[in-house]
Structure formats: C-alpha cells, structure tokens
C-alpha cells in the first residue's frame, strides 16, 4: 500500500528520500519525517505523525468528568500540571464554581515548578541534539530536585493528578516551603553557570543563530504559541495578558525574542526565551510562597458532577504554549466532547514550510527548538 505522503514527494530527480524517524535519537518521541535531501541540504521535510495516537478525546467522552483528570496528565507528561489546570478551569466554568484563593496559589506554585522542569528537559535535550552531551545531565540534575519537591507534594513524579475539579487534592506537606526556598536559592545561581557553559558557546550560537527563522506574521499565521511565539517577537503571555487563577497577583517579566544570536525568531531565540522564562517562573514561585493565603483547598463537588448543557474553553499558558481544553457538556455526567488543543500540534504544521533549504543538522536543531513532544501532537 503506497503511503499517500509519498505523493507529495516528486521522485523524478535524483534526490534521496530519507525516513527521519519514527525511531530516531533526535525526534523527541515517536515522530517521522519523510525528508527529501539533495546531499546535506533538504528539499523538504514532511512530518508524518500519529504513532502515539491514543484518542484521549474519545476517552474523555466515556469517562466521567473527575475520572478524566489522570488522562490529561498523559497528554503532555513533561508539563502535566498545566493539562490538569486547563481541564479543571473548563469544567469549573461549566459548573460555575469559584476556586478558593489558596487553591489557586497552590496551583500556580505547582504549575510554575512544572514549567521549570519542562524547560530544563527542553534546553537540556536541545544542547544534546546540537552535540554537547554534558549540559543534559546538569539540566536533569536540577529537574530531579523539582521532581522530588512535587513528589512530596502530590505523590507522583511525572503524571501528577494533583488538581481536582474545584481545587487541589493536597495541601503543602510539612517543611515543604523551606525545601522549595532552598532549591530556588540554589537554582538562581545556575543561570550564569548555564550561560557560560552552553548559551554563550560560540559553536552553539553559530549552530542556532539565524537558523530556521520564523517571522512574526508567520508565527501568528501558523498558530504558534508560547515560547515559539514570543521568540518571534510577539509579546503575548496568557498569564499576564488574560490572567487566570492567581496570576493577577504576581509581577514577572515575559522574555521576548531579541535576536540574541542573529535574527529575531531563529532557533537561538526560541532556546534562550525558554532559559529566561525558567528564571522568571522561579520568581513567581517565590512570590506565591510568600503571599500564600490561608483557607481551604477544595470546593465541595458532588462525586458525579452534572453541569448543565453548554460549552466552554479553559485556556492555560503551558510550558509549550497556550493549552486550551474545549469541553462541551450535554447535561449528563459524561462530557459530550473534550478537545485538547496543544501547542506542539501546530508547531508541526510549520516544519514543512520552513524546512526547505535547511541542512540535516538544522532540521535536528529546528525540531529541538520547537520543543515538540510526540504524545502532545498525537493525543
């Protein structure tokens, strides 16, 4: 059965057609690219996704509202807290619940820690894809501290299931606050070391500067979100421009691409925006810990909530950009339709159109800079 994707590849001339994936060290999960190369230079790289499709949206229609929460963790396991919060916000708006202040602060703390952990994996694996193997274990070492913190908070390292509809499952354990503050002190000294080790490395800047530039209009047109969008110069952050939960009380700066190593919107900008964002999130966690109000952490919700018919969209600024849960309810205790719109899915859409002219090594850099995660594409 000849794959339809090969129709798009014109095989008249003698270019080499390469299967870049699905099992390949630098595709960050199970993604396949049909790559048409002329020597080192690519004619075109066509993404072929779907290897990790578990139809989570169909499960959303079969499992009740609270039962779907653990599945949201598995949409993007590197940033599971945001998926929880997106779904929770959508269902709370359907049920017209007011989440207590303390629960919103706990959500913000857990989410920002999770953002740091997700960005650490992203920049660590990006450095490894470019060839520097050593920064990866350093990034994972810091992530281990965060994993231990979140494990003490909610019991799991990756698929947290920490949030519930109407609030949060647990409160801060004993002594967690001080452990978190000591981690933040240690973490803040890391930026200058990380910069000296890899960010300002001449080869690193050369490999990423001016590569696969995405202009401002292109980013908006292709629907890029999050760090990929901000790196192209669009100053948009959901936490600041359409604040949800407790983000209105925090002051933090949103890094925007400035062409640090060449052009605004190139691979280096997408990388360095994530590095700066990590340290902005560290400030948010610090502010949230200081201003943590007292109060209960979850609103009373029936075991089988039955929201009245209607639809809503819960938007959250995830580590991979604006994650939106579009939930349609028809009055029964099961959702009629649950739709997770993720940042990585649209980032894949742009690869085919900016890949012509890149080299094989640049395709690796582009995939790493867009920080796509396979389960988030295929859901």
């Amino acid at each position: 059965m000849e794959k339809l994707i090969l129709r798009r590849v014109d095989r008249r001339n003698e270019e080499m057609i390469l299967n870049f994936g699905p099992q390949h060290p630098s595709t960050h999960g199970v993604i396949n690219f049909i790559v048409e190369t002329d020597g080192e230079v690519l004619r075109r790289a066509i993404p072929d996704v779907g290897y990790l499709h578990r139809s989570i949206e169909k499960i959303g229609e079969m499992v009740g509202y609270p039962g779907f929460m653990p599945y949201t963790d598995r949409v993007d396991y590197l940033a599971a807290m945001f998926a929880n919060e997106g779904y929770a916000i959508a269902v709370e708006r359907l049920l017209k619940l007011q989440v207590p202040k303390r629960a919103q602060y706990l959500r913000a703390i857990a989410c920002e820690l999770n953002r740091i952990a997700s960005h650490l994996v992203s920049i660590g694996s990006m450095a490894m894809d470019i060839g520097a193997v050593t920064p990866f274990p350093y990034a994972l070492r810091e992530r281990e501290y965060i994993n231990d913190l979140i494990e003490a908070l909610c019991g799991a390292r990756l698929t947290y299931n920490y949030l519930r509809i109407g609030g949060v499952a647990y409160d801060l354990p004993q002594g967690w606050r001080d452990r978190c503050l000591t981690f933040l002190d240690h973490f803040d000294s890391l930026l200058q070391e990380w910069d000296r080790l890899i960010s300002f490395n001449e080869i690193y800047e050369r490999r990423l500067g001016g590569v696969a530039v995405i202009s401002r209009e292109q980013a908006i047109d292709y629907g890029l979100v999050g760090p990929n969008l901000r790196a192209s110069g669009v100053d948009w952050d959901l936490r600041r421009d359409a604040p949800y939960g407790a983000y209105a009380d925090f002051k933090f700066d949103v890094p925007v691409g400035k062409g640090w190593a060449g052009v605004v919107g190139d691979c280096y900008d997408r990388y360095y925006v994530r590095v700066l964002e990590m340290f902005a999130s560290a400030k948010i966690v610090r502010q949230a810990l200081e201003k943590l109000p007292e109060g209960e952490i979850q609103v009373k919700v029936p075991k089988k909530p039955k929201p009245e018919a209607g639809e809503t969209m819960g938007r959250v600024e995830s580590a991979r950009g604006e994650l939106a849960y579009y939930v349609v309810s028809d009055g029964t205790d099961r959702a009629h339709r649950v739709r997770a719109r993720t940042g990585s899915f649209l980032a894949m859409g742009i690869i085919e159109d900016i890949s012509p002219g890149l080299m094989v090594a640049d395709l690796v850099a582009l995939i790493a800079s867009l920080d796509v995660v396979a389960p988030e594409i295929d859901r």
Partner: protein
Amino acid sequence: MAQSASEYVGNVKDTVKSFWHGMSITLSYMLRRPITVQYPDRTDLPVRDTLPPRYRGFLEVDVSICTGCQACERACPISCIQMELEKDPRNPKQRLVTQFDIDEAKCMFCGLCVEPCPTGSIQHTREFEGSQRSIRNLVFRWADPLAPFPVYKVAKDA
C-alpha cells in the same frame, strides 16, 4: 561573505573565551562528588524508604475495615478493581466479600480510588518494584474466595 578584519578576529576571540568558560565548568564538575546513586543495590538505604509519605505506589487494602461499599471500584477510571459480595449463608444480615482483586498491571496509580473510601482501608504503599515473571502475578487478591471476609460495619456513634 566578506568579513571585516575586526569581525574575523572577534570570532576567534569569542571562540576562545567561550571555550575557556565551558572547559572550566566541566573540569570543575569533574572534581566534585557525583550526585547519582546506584540503584538497586548500592544505595545507602533501600529506595523504598526514601520516598515521601504521599508517594502513590501499589495499592494495599486493609480488609478488616473494608465496608464493601465498592466506592473505589466506581471511582477507578480504568475499572481495574473488581469486587464480589454475597450474603453470609449463616446470618443473613452479614455480607461477605468473596472477591476483591486489583489489577496493578492496568492501574495507573492516579489515587482516585483512595479518596472516596469511607474508612480509608484502600491506601497507596511506597512499593514500586513490580517486575514479575508473568503479568498475571500483578493481580493482587485481597479476598480469598474460599474464605471470604466479613464486611466491616461502622459503629453508629463512631
């Protein structure tokens, strides 16, 4: 592309400066103690004991206080808990649980079954090492069909 002389020399200078810092950092890490621990046998104490109390490992049922209300069975999204209750032939008011199986191979350790339990008989342990010869061994059986355990009745005033 024509490079000006200053740009040419600048590139060389940047390269040397950035290599200098990068190399010094990696050398500095070589002289420090590694942070990795050698699981499973060279850890100073078993990893199970270093986990925080809220860790969600394998499920454990305290059959003496299980009221047989099947709340956990309903709460589990993947339905990997299966219970079977029967009337006790000797005194009709007492119910017996003849089957209480949890399929830990399918369980995703989400913790949704622990919350609705009225007496807290089902809990997560800190046990996570689940490698078995066959996947069927991962089905934990908390009630013996031949000797079913009586359902616990919560005292009115408790």
